[in-house]
Protein backbone atom coordinates (compact mmCIF):
# COMPACT_ATOMS: atom_id res chain seq x y z
CA UNK A 1 0.00 0.00 0.00
CA UNK A 2 1.22 3.47 -0.96
CA UNK A 3 1.81 5.83 1.86
CA UNK A 4 0.78 9.52 1.71
CA UNK A 5 4.28 10.84 0.99
CA UNK A 6 4.75 8.49 -1.92
CA UNK A 7 1.79 9.73 -3.97
CA UNK A 8 2.93 11.23 -7.27
CA UNK A 9 0.87 13.46 -9.53
CA UNK A 10 0.99 13.57 -13.33
CA UNK A 11 0.65 17.36 -13.36
CA UNK A 12 2.22 19.75 -10.92
CA UNK A 13 -0.16 21.10 -8.31
CA UNK A 14 -0.74 24.85 -8.46
CA UNK A 15 0.74 26.45 -5.41
CA UNK A 16 0.77 30.17 -6.23
CA UNK A 17 -2.61 31.85 -6.14
CA UNK A 18 -2.55 34.72 -8.58
CA UNK A 19 -5.22 37.38 -8.16
CA UNK A 20 -7.96 36.87 -10.70
CA UNK A 21 -7.88 39.24 -13.67
CA UNK A 22 -10.89 41.44 -14.22
CA UNK A 23 -12.18 43.88 -16.77
CA UNK A 24 -11.50 47.33 -15.40
CA UNK A 25 -14.23 48.90 -17.53
CA UNK A 26 -16.85 46.54 -16.17
CA UNK A 27 -15.63 47.12 -12.65
CA UNK A 28 -15.49 50.93 -12.87
CA UNK A 29 -18.71 51.23 -14.85
CA UNK A 30 -17.09 52.93 -17.85
CA UNK A 31 -19.16 52.78 -21.02
CA UNK A 32 -17.23 54.98 -23.38
CA UNK A 33 -13.54 54.90 -24.22
CA UNK A 34 -12.24 58.23 -25.42
CA UNK A 35 -9.89 58.16 -28.40
CA UNK A 36 -8.68 61.67 -27.55
CA UNK A 37 -7.05 60.56 -24.30
CA UNK A 38 -3.72 59.23 -25.55
CA UNK A 39 -2.17 58.78 -22.12
CA UNK A 40 -5.00 56.49 -21.02
CA UNK A 41 -4.84 54.39 -24.17
CA UNK A 42 -1.11 53.85 -23.67
CA UNK A 43 -1.97 51.46 -20.84
CA UNK A 44 -3.21 49.03 -23.47
CA UNK A 45 -0.14 49.23 -25.69
CA UNK A 46 3.26 47.65 -25.49
CA UNK A 47 6.53 49.50 -26.02
CA UNK A 48 6.26 49.31 -29.78
CA UNK A 49 2.79 50.79 -29.73
CA UNK A 50 1.06 47.49 -30.43
CA UNK A 51 -2.17 46.53 -28.72
CA UNK A 52 -1.78 44.26 -25.72
CA UNK A 53 -3.79 41.05 -25.80
CA UNK A 54 -6.79 40.43 -23.60
CA UNK A 55 -5.03 37.71 -21.66
CA UNK A 56 -2.67 40.35 -20.27
CA UNK A 57 -4.99 43.32 -19.74
CA UNK A 58 -7.94 41.23 -18.61
CA UNK A 59 -10.46 43.26 -20.63
CA UNK A 60 -13.75 41.69 -21.56
CA UNK A 61 -14.26 41.14 -25.26
CA UNK A 62 -16.77 43.97 -25.52
CA UNK A 63 -14.33 46.52 -24.14
CA UNK A 64 -11.26 45.13 -25.84
CA UNK A 65 -13.06 45.86 -29.11
CA UNK A 66 -13.81 49.39 -27.96
CA UNK A 67 -10.22 49.89 -26.85
CA UNK A 68 -8.92 48.73 -30.21
CA UNK A 69 -11.30 51.05 -32.05
CA UNK A 70 -10.22 53.97 -29.88
CA UNK A 71 -6.51 53.20 -30.40
CA UNK A 72 -6.98 52.99 -34.15
CA UNK A 73 -8.77 56.33 -34.19
CA UNK A 74 -6.04 57.90 -32.09
CA UNK A 75 -3.42 56.56 -34.50
CA UNK A 76 -5.22 58.09 -37.47
CA UNK A 77 -5.23 61.48 -35.80
CA UNK A 78 -1.55 61.28 -34.82
CA UNK A 79 -2.33 61.15 -31.09
CA UNK A 80 -0.64 57.74 -30.89
CA UNK A 81 2.08 56.48 -33.22
CA UNK A 82 1.56 53.54 -35.55
CA UNK A 83 5.04 52.16 -34.98
CA UNK A 84 7.63 53.29 -32.51
CA UNK A 85 10.22 52.20 -29.98
CA UNK A 86 10.35 52.99 -26.30
CA UNK A 87 6.80 54.29 -26.06
CA UNK A 88 6.87 54.09 -22.28
Amino acid at each position, binding site marked *: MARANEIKYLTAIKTDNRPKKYC*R*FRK*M*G*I*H*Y*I*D*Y*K*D*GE*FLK*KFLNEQGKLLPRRITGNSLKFQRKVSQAVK*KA*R*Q*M*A*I*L*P*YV*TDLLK
Partner: protein
Amino acid sequence: MEVFTYLCSPLKKADHLIIHKNGKMNNYELMVIFTPVLSDDEYKAAQKKYESFVKENGGEVVNSKPWELKSLAYPIAKKTTGLYWVMEYKAPSSFNEKLKIQLLRDESVMRHMFTILDKYAVEYNAKKRSGVSSVTENAEV
Protein backbone atom coordinates in the same frame (compact mmCIF):
# COMPACT_ATOMS: atom_id res chain seq x y z
CA MET B 1 -49.74 35.84 -28.30
CA GLU B 2 -47.67 34.93 -31.31
CA VAL B 3 -50.14 36.59 -33.62
CA PHE B 4 -50.02 39.68 -31.49
CA THR B 5 -46.24 40.09 -31.71
CA TYR B 6 -46.35 39.39 -35.40
CA LEU B 7 -48.77 42.24 -35.89
CA CYS B 8 -46.89 44.62 -33.66
CA SER B 9 -43.33 44.24 -34.85
CA PRO B 10 -43.69 45.61 -38.39
CA LEU B 11 -45.46 48.66 -37.01
CA LYS B 12 -42.59 49.43 -34.68
CA LYS B 13 -40.08 49.20 -37.50
CA ALA B 14 -42.13 51.55 -39.66
CA ASP B 15 -42.30 54.10 -36.85
CA HIS B 16 -38.58 54.15 -36.58
CA LEU B 17 -38.22 54.81 -40.30
CA ILE B 18 -40.60 57.75 -40.25
CA ILE B 19 -38.63 59.44 -37.50
CA HIS B 20 -35.47 58.93 -39.49
CA LYS B 21 -36.87 60.40 -42.68
CA ASN B 22 -38.02 63.55 -40.96
CA GLY B 23 -34.40 64.42 -40.24
CA LYS B 24 -33.51 62.88 -36.91
CA MET B 25 -30.56 64.69 -35.41
CA ASN B 26 -27.53 62.61 -34.59
CA ASN B 27 -24.61 63.42 -32.34
CA TYR B 28 -21.27 63.71 -34.04
CA GLU B 29 -17.80 64.82 -33.21
CA LEU B 30 -15.37 66.28 -35.69
CA MET B 31 -11.64 66.44 -35.13
CA VAL B 32 -9.54 68.47 -37.52
CA ILE B 33 -5.79 68.99 -37.75
CA PHE B 34 -4.96 72.29 -39.43
CA THR B 35 -1.48 73.05 -40.74
CA PRO B 36 0.72 74.76 -38.16
CA VAL B 37 1.49 77.62 -40.59
CA LEU B 38 -1.92 79.23 -39.90
CA SER B 39 -1.86 82.44 -37.89
CA ASP B 40 -4.04 82.80 -34.80
CA ASP B 41 -6.67 84.77 -36.69
CA GLU B 42 -6.80 82.31 -39.56
CA TYR B 43 -7.13 79.46 -37.09
CA LYS B 44 -10.07 81.14 -35.38
CA ALA B 45 -11.65 82.15 -38.70
CA ALA B 46 -11.48 78.56 -39.96
CA GLN B 47 -13.22 77.31 -36.81
CA LYS B 48 -15.93 79.97 -37.18
CA LYS B 49 -16.39 79.05 -40.81
CA TYR B 50 -17.17 75.41 -40.07
CA GLU B 51 -19.31 76.25 -37.07
CA SER B 52 -21.49 78.52 -39.18
CA PHE B 53 -21.57 75.86 -41.88
CA VAL B 54 -23.09 73.44 -39.36
CA LYS B 55 -25.70 76.01 -38.34
CA GLU B 56 -26.59 76.86 -41.95
CA ASN B 57 -27.40 73.23 -42.65
CA GLY B 58 -29.80 72.80 -39.78
CA GLY B 59 -27.26 71.55 -37.28
CA GLU B 60 -26.41 72.70 -33.80
CA VAL B 61 -22.95 73.16 -32.33
CA VAL B 62 -22.78 71.65 -28.85
CA ASN B 63 -19.18 72.40 -28.08
CA SER B 64 -16.10 73.62 -29.86
CA LYS B 65 -12.66 73.24 -28.41
CA PRO B 66 -9.36 74.32 -29.93
CA TRP B 67 -6.42 72.31 -28.62
CA GLU B 68 -3.95 74.83 -30.06
CA LEU B 69 -0.56 73.66 -31.27
CA LYS B 70 0.22 70.04 -30.47
CA SER B 71 3.08 67.84 -31.60
CA LEU B 72 2.08 64.93 -33.83
CA ALA B 73 2.98 61.34 -33.06
CA TYR B 74 4.34 61.02 -36.59
CA PRO B 75 4.88 63.59 -39.35
CA ILE B 76 1.94 64.44 -41.61
CA ALA B 77 2.72 66.29 -44.84
CA LYS B 78 6.29 66.80 -43.57
CA LYS B 79 5.03 68.71 -40.53
CA THR B 80 5.68 67.60 -36.99
CA THR B 81 3.10 69.81 -35.29
CA GLY B 82 -0.54 70.56 -35.97
CA LEU B 83 -3.36 72.81 -34.80
CA TYR B 84 -6.03 70.52 -33.40
CA TRP B 85 -9.68 71.41 -33.20
CA VAL B 86 -12.52 69.31 -31.80
CA MET B 87 -16.17 70.16 -32.39
CA GLU B 88 -19.18 68.35 -31.01
CA TYR B 89 -22.40 68.94 -32.91
CA LYS B 90 -25.85 67.67 -33.73
CA ALA B 91 -26.84 67.35 -37.35
CA PRO B 92 -29.04 65.34 -39.70
CA SER B 93 -27.35 62.26 -41.08
CA SER B 94 -26.99 63.66 -44.61
CA PHE B 95 -24.91 66.60 -43.40
CA ASN B 96 -21.54 64.94 -42.90
CA GLU B 97 -21.05 64.29 -46.60
CA LYS B 98 -21.41 68.00 -47.32
CA LEU B 99 -19.01 68.93 -44.58
CA LYS B 100 -16.52 66.35 -45.80
CA ILE B 101 -16.40 67.95 -49.25
CA GLN B 102 -15.67 71.33 -47.66
CA LEU B 103 -12.91 69.88 -45.49
CA LEU B 104 -11.24 68.07 -48.36
CA ARG B 105 -11.24 71.23 -50.48
CA ASP B 106 -9.69 73.27 -47.70
CA GLU B 107 -5.92 73.31 -48.07
CA SER B 108 -5.30 74.30 -44.48
CA VAL B 109 -6.84 71.03 -43.26
CA MET B 110 -4.24 68.30 -43.00
CA ARG B 111 -6.56 65.65 -41.63
CA HIS B 112 -10.07 65.30 -40.29
CA MET B 113 -12.19 62.62 -38.70
CA PHE B 114 -15.87 62.20 -37.89
CA THR B 115 -17.02 60.18 -34.92
CA ILE B 116 -20.57 59.09 -34.26
CA LEU B 117 -21.30 59.60 -30.57
CA ASP B 118 -23.54 57.19 -28.71
CA LYS B 119 -25.39 58.17 -25.54
CA TYR B 120 -22.48 57.18 -23.32
CA ALA B 121 -20.09 59.29 -25.34
CA VAL B 122 -22.35 62.33 -25.08
CA GLU B 123 -22.58 61.81 -21.34
CA TYR B 124 -18.80 61.45 -21.06
CA ASN B 125 -18.14 64.62 -23.05
CA ALA B 126 -20.67 66.60 -21.03
CA LYS B 127 -19.07 65.42 -17.80
CA LYS B 128 -15.60 66.29 -19.02
CA ARG B 129 -16.73 69.77 -20.02
CA SER B 130 -18.28 70.47 -16.65
CA GLY B 131 -14.94 69.69 -15.03
CA VAL B 132 -15.80 66.50 -13.18
CA SER B 133 -12.75 64.24 -13.13
CA SER B 134 -13.45 61.62 -15.77
CA VAL B 135 -14.02 58.06 -14.68
CA THR B 136 -11.23 56.78 -16.91
CA GLU B 137 -8.67 58.53 -14.71
CA ASN B 138 -9.61 56.25 -11.85
CA ALA B 139 -9.27 53.06 -13.88
CA GLU B 140 -5.75 52.11 -12.91
CA VAL B 141 -4.45 48.60 -13.38
